[in-house]
């Protein structure tokens, strides 16, 4: 299926000239942050991996393409600053929403839409395994599934671990005022292996969850458009759908779909990121299997 066909299928059947409303899953800020995060993450991965796999021929080529190791270093550090900025903006957004929508951190963190793992997530996880093995129906997932929560907190963990060790590598002269010199070596290992984990996980498992899952194939653009057809929403997150219907607030979450040109732009961007991500995975596998020393 070509993207164009997909676009056409995305189009809801014309009903009295009015396009059908779609469910708005992600806020504008979250969508922008995700796009910026992709840019930042890709830059970090590309520039960082050239160093990690410097023994492969194509690390040298890529390093040249990126403008040499110094330029690559600048890109890496600027992208890292961007990543931390995204992180801060997100926390800031949470604080804002706490004020406006929840009133307290407790309400935000314990409400039905919480990102924190709950007992229900454990149930859904067990239910999912049963479903996978043909021992039960598909769990009725809510707003955030347990794997989405895992991805979300993986970013928290990654930013802390990679960010802190990255700072040490950025300012070794400062950090060795306090720490012994070998901690820089330890930081190098942690930084590089944790980055490998992040890159590997996002470009395989996370990509599968959002793009390669057959029912979403070739890609789910909800994170960029923020919108998903109501039918898809009902199938995918039945618990959330029903909660909204029961509360009678579903209409508050329905918005007009984007015009095709916007969808096409989003798809072009998403395809680029996807291709880049897979290239990096192929490269890593090549480096680990065939060129490892």
């Amino acid at each position, binding site marked *: 299926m070509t993207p164009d066909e997909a676009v056409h*299928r*995305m189009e*809801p059947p014309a009903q009295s000239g009015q396009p*059908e409303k779609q469910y708005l899953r992600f806020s504008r800020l979250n969508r922008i942050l995700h796009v910026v995060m992709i840019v930042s993450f890709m830059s970090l991965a590309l520039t960082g991996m*050239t*160093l*990690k796999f*410097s*023994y492969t021929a194509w*690390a*040298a080529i890529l*390093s*040249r393409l990126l403008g040499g*190791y*110094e330029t690559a270093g600048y890109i890496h550090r600027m992208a890292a600053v961007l990543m931390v900025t995204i992180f801060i903006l997100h926390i800031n957004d949470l604080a804002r929403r706490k004020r406006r929508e929840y009133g307290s951190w407790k309400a935000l963190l314990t409400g039905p839409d919480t990102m924190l793992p709950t007992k229900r997530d454990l149930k859904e996880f067990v239910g*999912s*395994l049963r*479903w*996978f*093995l043909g021992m039960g129906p*598909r769990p009725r997932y809510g707003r955030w599934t347990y*794997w989405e929560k895992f991805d979300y907190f993986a970013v928290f963990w990654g930013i802390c671990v990679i960010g802190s060790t990255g700072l040490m*590598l950025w300012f*070794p*002269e*400062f950090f*060795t*005022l306090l720490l*012994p*010199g*070998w901690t820089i*070596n*330890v930081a*190098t*290992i*942690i930084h590089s*292996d*944790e980055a*490998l*984990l992040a890159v*590997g*996980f996002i470009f*395989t*498992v996370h990509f*599968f*969850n959002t793009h390669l*899952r*057959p*029912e979403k*194939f070739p890609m789910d653009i909800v994170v960029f458009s923020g919108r*998903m*057809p*109501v*039918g*898809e*929403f*009902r*199938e*995918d997150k039945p618990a959330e759908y029903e909660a909204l219907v029961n509360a009678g607030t579903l209409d508050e979450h329905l918005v007009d779909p984007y015009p095709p040109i916007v969808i096409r732009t989003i798809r072009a961007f998403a395809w680029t990121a996807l291709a880049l991500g897979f290239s990096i995975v192929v490269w890593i596998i090549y480096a680990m299997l065939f060129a490892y*020393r």
Partner: protein
Amino acid sequence: MRLTSSIARGWLLLASVGLSGGLRGAAAQENPDCLACHGDRSLSMKRGGKTVPLFVDEKKFGASIHASLSCVGCHADLQGKELPHGSPLAKVDCGSCHTQQQKEHAESLHGRAIARGDELAPRCPDCHGDHDILPVKNPRSAVAPQRIPWVCGKCHQEGTPVQRQRVIHEDHILTNYSESIHGEALLKKGLTVAATCVSCHTAHTILRHTDPRSSINRKNIAATCTKCHSQIEAVHRKIIRGELWEKQANSLPACVDCHQPHKARRVFYDQGMADADCMKCHGDPGVRASKGGRTLFVNLEEIRGSRHVRTACSQCHSEVNASRVRPCETITKKVDCTSCHADIGALYQKSTHGMLVAKSDPNAPVCNECHGTHGVLGKRDPASPTFPTNIPDLCARCHREGRKAAVRYTGTEHDIIERYQESIHGKGLLKSGLTVTATCTDCHTAHSVLPISSPESSVNPKNVPATCGRCHHGIEEMFNASVHVTQAGKTDKRLPVCNDCHSAHTIRRADTEGFKLTIMAQCGKCHEEISKTYFDTYHGKVSQLGYTKTAKCYDCHGAHDIRAIGDPKSHLSRENVVATCQKCHPGATRRFAGYLTHATHHDPQKYPFLFYTFWGMTGLLIGTFVVGGLHTILWLPRAIQMRRRFRRKNGTSRPGGEA
């Protein structure tokens, strides 16, 4: 029988001596007493199977210079003995009177040969005779000048045991001498003042020419010749500047360089052998050899511009004979440059080139192949093939890939000419025109060219630092104090010399990117493990990507002055390490210097922190992927099922399509 009869007569004699000489004591022995027996022509004895005459000619003895001496004066061991005496007698010791001559002879080649027990060595009587010794001035003396050549020639001519069995470097000595100007004067013209053997070699102090005391030592030859040829320098002023005779006698050619010993002839220069005579024929451009037809034309202009402008044709083409209509018809040998350039010739003969020539190898280069012939120029003349900028092309004639020397070469250096031209030395010489830049001969020498395996070769690993140090002296000093030299003998590993890092013919500037990057591989050739661990660190990884700004081996360890870490002068000693880091990291502290620049996470003993961090992280990585991967794989069949269900339901794969 004869002996018995003589003894009987001896007894009679003894009786008469006892009677007549009673006053002088019973032991007195007068010459007549001896001659009573030895005056008998038939007196002889057997010694070692040979009959030895014991006859003493009273007449000859009476005419000899020793006539006034008594027999027992020389045969001292008979003094006071009863006559007739037993045998054998002790050898007569001439030195008891001729002390000085005896001493000289004892120190000479001949004397030392006697001391060694050499049977062929001459003793006094072998030259001087015994009972019939005449004064030297007497023309009939055995050692009168005109007889000297034959005295010496007894041993020193072709076919004698001495000439065959002892190391005598000159050949046909007597023949050559008799044909030389000295020999001719003495033997044909009877000039007794002409030089004989002993005039040059001395009579008793005969020493090897290598002995500095020898009269024929290079240093002494001029003095020896000028004993007769006083003021000879006046004759040579045309060739040799006069003051040099006094000031720098060493740098002058010795007489024998031009006037070969034993062959000295005056025809060398003045007897009609002027260059003009040669040019009568060789000035004609059409003159050709009768055999082979090669041109024999000599371009006088060429010679006039050459280094040998003052050298006469016959000095090099030395076998000419002025008495012939065609003086050059006696020439049998090629020009021998070593008759003047003896030192260089000696070096050349030991070189690969010279040794190949000795084996008559057709590919071996002789003097003129590099230096030219009549137009030979000095190495300072830009037109000379041996001028620095021309040397690569000169050597390339044989050593360029595919040429005659290159095809026999079995070593590892290839395309040497092209590579040299691209090297820093080649560019300096050929592009920048720096004539002080190293050319082929600066490293390989001009005349002592030897393969790298020869211990005497200038490019043998043992000698390479000294060879490079001739120009790069400061580097050599540093290098000689470095661990790569001071460890010699303490390790069985081969230590590197200049070319192991810099290569031989591809030497690049040390500040070029390419060199900086390859140097790590060069260190890694020996320091395998440590270079691997270097490439595990940030410094190494950036270097591996092809950038030179991060620290490379020599940035920390030094290049030529690498010392053991424990050496206080090492760049990495406790005293210096922080300063070394500060070269790139201005804020570096002692703690900073604790960074492990050769860290590996594969060694739990040495680097437990790194080892466990690495495996901790790897465990986390594998764990996450196993869980994530399993979750995804298990999910896959259900997801495909879902897709099919949507398709069946509404002809689209997506759940949203149904709406």
